[in-house]
Structures are given as C-alpha cells and as structure tokens.
C-alpha cells in the first residue's frame, strides 16, 4: 500500500512539473530544457532554509518560488531574443550552469553529498510525515496548479500566448507585446516548478544534485510532448504512464540495470512516434483548409 502511495506522490510531483512546463512549451511555443533546474532551485532553497534555519514551509515555499521566479525572469530576458533551436540550447546552458552550482558550490550545497535530514512539512502543529497525509497535501497542490494554469490559459493573457505560438509575427502586428508575454509565461512556469521541488525535498527528506540533471529536464519535456503540449488532461495521463513505466518493466521481470535503459528507450521511441503524429495532424489540417 505504501508503495502505491509513493507512486501516487511521485505522479503528483511530476504532474506539477509537466503542467507548468506546458505553459512555456505548449502555449508560448518555446521548448525549455531548464525545467529541472528550477525544480532543483525549489528543492535546495527549502532544504537549506529548513535544515539550517529551521524555517517553516510557509516561509520557505514563497522564498523558493520568489528565487526561481527571479532566476527564470533573468533567464527569459536573455532567452527571449532567440527562437527554436537557440532557445533550447540556451535553456540547456542554464540547466548545466544551475547543475554545476548545485554540484560544485560545496560550501553551501554540500555538492554531491547532498542534504540529508530535511524535516517533513508541518502546518499548525500537524506534521505531514505519513505517506497518506503527504499524498493529500500534494494532491492539494496539484489541484491549485491545475486550476491556476487552466484559468491562466483561458484568460486574455492565455489567448495572447496561444496566438503567439501559432504565429508570432502576426500576433506582434496586432499590437500585442510578444516578448513580455513570453517572459511572464516563463517566469510563472519557473515559479510553479519550484513548488514541485519543495514538495519533493520534504517528501524524500534527502536531496542531491543528481535528481536535477539534464536527463530530468529531457524527461519532463518528453512528458509534455507525449502528452500533446497543451492539453492538461492528456499531460496528466502521460505523466501517469511515464512514471509508472519503470515499475511496469520491473513487474515484467526485467533486471533493474536494463530496466532503466529500457525505460529511456521507450520514451525515446514515444517521442519519435509523437513527432510523426504531429506531422500527420498538420497535413490533415492543411487539407481541410484548402
């Protein structure tokens, strides 16, 4: 039972991550590979503050969101000048820089040793240390994030995002501030990702830089792409599928050292198939129009 709860918590954390990435990737049309970086910033901020200063999550969560929001803002200020391939490379660069800082700035982050003994979340004397209570807490956050994003994309601002992902120059010609919209969406996405980081740090109670690598970023991006970029429901389903996939492989009886590679191979294949599918859909759409 504990094991199922554990998987459910992981699914909630990844749902927050992938849905927050979909604001950037799906709506404003920029693929970001820096998402695990913001996830890591959230986790490290809360871990360091709660271990060193004993601050409660009421303070660490806003601080984590603020910090990754500020960093995301600066990053997007630079990255927004570029398109497509360049955007991916520059976000990849940010991811590598954040990882290097987590891994190498040993005086603060303890480097590869990681930060152990992170206390569990306490709210008004109630400690979320059992798995069931933590699951309820993470479902609470998933609901908030889901609600926020689905309202955001329906708002006038969301319409600008959708318009610019279809045709940036046309949107600009309508007098919309494309750059500002991109920057705001990137910042919001970074802030939401740090929520997932906070949850993860307090849940696992031990973090080290290897949880926030470039592979993690690719994994989150794959979830979003396989989930169809925009649709929050299918992104959730894709999260469930990709998080449960390694467990399914283990269930089949695959040795664990091959299972990790097998899982990556499967999502690599899924990525290629999805891209083929996108091509098909676009052609159909064109045929209908003509």
């Amino acid at each position: 039972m504990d094991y199922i709860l554990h998987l459910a918590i992981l699914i909630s954390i990844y749902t927050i991550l992938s849905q927050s990435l979909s604001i950037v990737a799906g709506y404003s049309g920029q693929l970001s590979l820096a998402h695990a970086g913001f996830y890591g910033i959230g986790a490290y901020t809360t871990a360091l503050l709660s271990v060193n200063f004993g601050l409660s999550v009421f303070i660490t969560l806003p601080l984590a969101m603020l910090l990754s929001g500020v960093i995301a803002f600066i990053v997007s200020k630079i990255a927004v000048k570029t398109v497509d391939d360049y955007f991916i490379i520059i976000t990849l660069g940010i991811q590598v820089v954040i990882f290097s800082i987590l891994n190498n700035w040993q005086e603060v982050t303890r480097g590869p040793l990681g930060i152990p003994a992170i206390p569990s979340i306490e709210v008004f004397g109630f400690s979320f240390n059992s798995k069931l209570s933590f699951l309820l807490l993470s479902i609470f956050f998933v609901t908030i994030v889901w609600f926020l994003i689905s309202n955001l994309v329906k708002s006038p601002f969301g319409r600008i995002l959708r318009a610019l992902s279809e045709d940036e120059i046309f949107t600009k010609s309508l007098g919309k501030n494309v750059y500002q919209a991109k920057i705001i969406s990137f910042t919001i996405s970074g802030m939401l990702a740090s929520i997932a980081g906070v949850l993860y740090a307090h849940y696992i109670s031990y973090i080290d830089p290897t949880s926030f690598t470039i592979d993690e970023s690719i994994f989150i991006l794959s979830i979003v792409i396989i989930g169809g970029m925009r649709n929050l429901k299918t992104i959730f389903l894709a999260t469930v599928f990709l998080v449960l996939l390694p467990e399914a492989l283990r269930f089949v009886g695959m040795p664990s050292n091959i299972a990790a590679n097998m899982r990556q191979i499967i999502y690599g294949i899924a990525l290629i198939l999805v891209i083929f599918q996108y091509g098909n859909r676009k052609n159909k759409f064109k045929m209908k129009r003509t």
Partner: protein
Amino acid sequence: MTIQILINILLSSSVYALLVFSFRIKYLTLRFFDFSHAIIITFGGYFTYLFSVLMDFNLFLAISLAIISSVIISLLILQFIYKPLQKRNTENWQMLVASLGIYIILQNIISIIFGDENKSIRTWEIKKGYNFLNAYITGIQITLVFSTIILLLLTWLFLNKTKIGKKIKAVSSNPTLSSILGISNDKATIWSFIIGSFLASISGILITLDSDMIPTIGFNWLLYAVVAMIIAGMGKLRYVFMSVVLLATAQHLSAYYIDSKWMNATAYIILIVFLYFKPYGFSGKKLKKAEL
C-alpha cells in the same frame, strides 16, 4: 605550466574545430540542430572498441570499419527518420525533438550492450609523452592535432573546390532556388551527412584514443561544439577558429585558476553572454533567417 596550458588549449581547440566542422556541414542542409550527431561521435569510439578490443582486429582496420559503420548508421537515420519527417512538413523544433529521441534510444542501446562504466580502446601501455619545454604531450595528442589540420583542410577543399561541395553550399543558402536550378536537395543532404558523420566518427575515435569513454561522451562534446558554433555565427570559417580558441582558452584558464569542475559552466556562461550582447556571434551574420 604556461606551456602546458597552451598545449591543452591547442588540443581542445583542434577537437572542437573538428566537431564544429562536422556539425556545421549537417546543419547547412538540415537546418536544425541534429542531436543524433552526438551518438555518431560515440559510435566512432565504441565501434573501434568493438572491432579492435573485443574482436581483436588490427587497429587501423578497426578504425576504418568503425568510421564506415558510423556513417552507415547516420545515413539510415536520415533515410528512415528525417526524410519521412521532412515530407510531413514538420517544424524545426519537432525535428530537433525527434533527433533527441534518436539520441536517447541509441545511447541507451550502447549502455545496454557495453555497460555504463569507463571503457578504453588503448590496449597498449600508456607512455609518459614527450617533454617539450617542461610540458608533456603524448604521441596520440600530436596525431590528433595533425590529423585535425589535415581533415579540416580536406573538408575546406571539398566544400569549395568540388561540385558536390558547391551544391551543398547552394542548398544551404537557398534550398528552393537551388532546386529550381536542378540541384538535388536530397543528394546534397546525403553528401553532407556522409562528410559530417565521417568527421564526427573520426573525432570520436581521436577523443577516445586520448582518454576513456562512457556512453554519454558524445553529448558532452557535441554541446561544446554547438556552443562554439553559435559563438562563431554562420559567416566565414575564420570565425570558427576564433570561437574555438576563445572557448578552449576560457575553459582551461577557469580550470587552472578556479577548478576544473567549472569547465562546463564556463562554456555556457560564455554562450549566454554572447547571445545577450552579440546574438549572431563573431561573424554578425544571422544563422537563421527570419521566417516570414
């Protein structure tokens, strides 16, 4: 110590230059960042390991077999993934994601077959290297520098003096116009793939002759090459040399004065600074034309 740093800078720059050339040729006709290029670099090393260490072939035979098989794999990727996708009018970012997918699949296949631990194709004893003004350089490193220079010269001649090279350049500057003039886009793409993968697998072999390899080795090196290519921009080739020397110098100086752990971060910080102040690199020529 200064001499040693200079030698290290020279070695890194020559590997970067080779990689940038190989990546750039593919980029000329493909027009997106092909991440599967990373796996061709890795294949160079691992096929050589397979043929020379596991199957016990002569080293030169093994190297030529490795190069041929890497080129064939890259052509298969082109034929069965990229061409069908291009027929479907996929956008740039979608092609890039597909190439990332290919990279993930092939890299994990290598991990399953060969394992994740360090492998080396050096079966011979490691020599101390030649002493040169109190700095050390090994025979392999000298080979690396010279073969890079020769290969770069040959590639330059190929691109500028042969018919196929000129076709590649024509397709890269305007695919529609060149197809109107009867230059086959497909043919140019295939040739650019052959040359690009040839250079990539050789650089993979040279890298692994000099140090050990792990399945993700290609990706790390490719990212440096991408950084160097962006810094250089798309103009004349001399900008490529400027950018690789700048990148290598910054990395080795940061390794010497701060710590070698920060080499990765240094490369990207340079990239970010460049993209902010000089978005089109040294050459100032746009890598990507505005698509209207």
